[in-house]
């Protein structure tokens, strides 16, 4: 009898712990709304209050959030797949076949993983397009902003996403996988000076074999996701330190015009002594009552909606389109035509179109289309924020007049990539010859 109250007390204590973990979706007071963010680990990376503008559906289209949700789906579906997949050249293809045809819901896990991967490539790219067109990589007026750095982290995340996709579709060890590694690593070997060594290191030898598969497996399941997680965390942290989404800077610009209140000059922050004013203090010049709402539930609710929507779309696509699996890898027969996944077809077009002969010297398209052109695009994207001298009034403004010319140049590049992708996807047939969609492909002997 004596132990009874203790157990009860312990249970009550457990309840209190639970209260600390959960939060309310319907706060009744400002205090409750603030507490659910500040006192909660899961929500602590949000500000307690958030501007209405940054919650808007059609400023950001929530593309970053969607990317993050897709990445979460990829982690969750990837874990059971890691238990089921065997990274050996003898068994990889058969284990994927098992996942597809004998494991309960295996087809669904693999399908969802594949669909979210495709969507993630698309959405991360659209996120980049959005940030560029809205001038959101530019610093506004608040102190210590470094949005150009966050733009560079974003580009790195896009490249990591592409590498994750590349290493991912190699794992089934089917024909697509084998010939994609062949072409991919030969592009690497076209790199000046270190090319051959790079190919040898990537393959773990001079031919595509077990060493290659296990390398891409470890990259796909450990190093690349780890890189995405770390950079994603930094990406989010920087968004906070840069004073939120770029459109918020417009608010403080407008507000400064209407009333020039003295800026608070607090020189300490929550975590200790730091020099200068913190961004948090700086952004608080935005009239809170007029422009902001509590993050809980306004931000958390939309976040839940976006997550649900993303999951729903991915699941529907998974059920509608079953993931394909080509014939088992066969080093002796290249499929005809051998096509990369859609997001690499613009590169496949480029390496096809860019072999040039100048004065008797022939330069392989692998070097120009496979290394120089993508390299120049990445470098240009990285330095762009430092070259963009448009006024601060364009920060976070879609298609701002003062940035019209650079937006047009950017859109032309995006359009060129899309056109090449479409040509590669729909207009290329056997031997990479050009066919209109209404032209039928000639029948080809299977082997030679």
């Amino acid at each position: 009898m004596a132990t009874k109250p203790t157990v009860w007390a312990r249970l009550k204590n457990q309840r209190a712990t639970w209260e600390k973990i959960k939060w309310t979706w319907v706060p009744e007071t400002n205090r409750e709304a603030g507490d659910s963010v500040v006192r909660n680990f899961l929500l602590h990376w949000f500000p307690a209050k958030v501007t209405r503008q940054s919650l808007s559906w059609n400023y950001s289209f929530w593309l970053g959030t969607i990317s993050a949700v897709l990445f979460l789906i990829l982690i969750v579906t990837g874990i059971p797949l890691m238990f089921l997949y065997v990274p050996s050249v003898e068994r990889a293809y058969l284990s994927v076949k098992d996942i597809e045809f004998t494991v309960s819901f295996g087809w669904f896990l693999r399908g969802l993983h594949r669909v979210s991967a495709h969507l993630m490539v698309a959405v991360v790219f659209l996120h980049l397009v959005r940030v560029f067109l809205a001038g959101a990589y530019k610093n506004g007026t608040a102190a210590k902003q470094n949005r150009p750095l966050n733009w560079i982290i974003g580009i790195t995340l896009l490249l990591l996403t592409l590498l994750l996709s590349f290493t991912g579709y190699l794992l089934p060890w089917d024909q697509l996988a084998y010939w994609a590694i062949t072409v991919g690593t030969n592009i690497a070997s076209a790199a000046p000076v270190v090319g051959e060594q790079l190919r040898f290191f990537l393959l773990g030898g001079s031919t595509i074999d077990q060493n290659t598969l296990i390398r891409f497996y470890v990259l796909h399941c450990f190093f690349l996701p780890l890189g995405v997680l770390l950079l994603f965390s930094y990406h989010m942290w920087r968004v906070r330190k840069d004073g939120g989404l770029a459109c918020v800077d417009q608010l403080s610009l407008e507000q400064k015009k209407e009333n020039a209140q003295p800026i608070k000059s607090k020189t300490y922050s929550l975590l200790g002594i730091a020099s200068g004013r913190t961004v948090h203090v700086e952004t608080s010049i935005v009239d809170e009552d007029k422009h902001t709402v509590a993050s809980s539930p306004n931000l958390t609710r939309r976040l839940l909606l976006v997550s649900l929507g993303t999951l729903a779309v991915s699941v529907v696509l998974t059920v509608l389109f079953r993931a394909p699996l080509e014939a088992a890898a066969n080093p002796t027969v290249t499929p005809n035509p051998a096509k990369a996944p859609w997001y690499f077809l613009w590169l496949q077009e480029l390496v096809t179109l860019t072999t040039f002969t100048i004065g008797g010297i022939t330069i392989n398209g692998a070097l120009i289309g496979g290394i120089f052109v993508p390299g120049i695009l990445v470098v240009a994207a990285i330095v762009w924020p430092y070259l963009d001298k448009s006024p601060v009034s364009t920060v976070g403004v879609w298609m701002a007049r003062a940035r019209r010319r650079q937006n047009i140049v950017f859109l032309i590049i995006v359009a060129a990539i899309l056109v090449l992708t479409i040509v590669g996807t729909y207009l290329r047939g056997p031997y990479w010859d050009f066919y209109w969609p209404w032209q039928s492909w000639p029948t080809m002997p299977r082997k030679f």
Partner: protein
Amino acid sequence: MRKKKSGPEEITASYPSPESPDESVKTGGVNLSRRKLISRVGLGATLLAIGGQAYAFVRSLVPNVLYEDPKRFKVGTLDQFSEGAKFIEDKRVFIFREKNTLHCVSATCTHLGCTVKMQRLNQPKRVNAGGREFDEQVEFACPCHGSKYYGDGTNYSGPAPRPLDHFKLEVAPEDGQLVVDTSEIVRQDFRLTV
């Protein structure tokens, strides 16, 4: 420590000055305070240790032994090769026989390494490849990016930057089998006469 610039050095400045001349030691004409010297040695040792581990990590992934197929291999006795071209599938080479001469053309596209496909022509075609005229029975085409080659391996269309490799052929003295040596690339006009 929010700010990187105000690192340890600035904080140590509030301690009794380490820069006073009697506390400094002279090392090779450079004035270093003892504290600075020790901190640099410590930092250097740490970096060296991490660098060493990193080297070991990366070096272990460069294989010392390759369990790969040999680059020199037998493809069969001479009577197995009749007039014309034959594809040795698992070795990715074509063996050509013209009466009593043989030569070997690689099936690996010189653009990005896919296996080219041999297309047999219905009737011999007269072509001019780099000044040399000859009749060809077959041509090669690559399914990945559409490179095209004449029967002698000379590229004439698509992104391939150079002709298909030709490999050295020998006859093994012990059993009379044809031997291909893919580690030795020979001129296009190389012929093994038997």
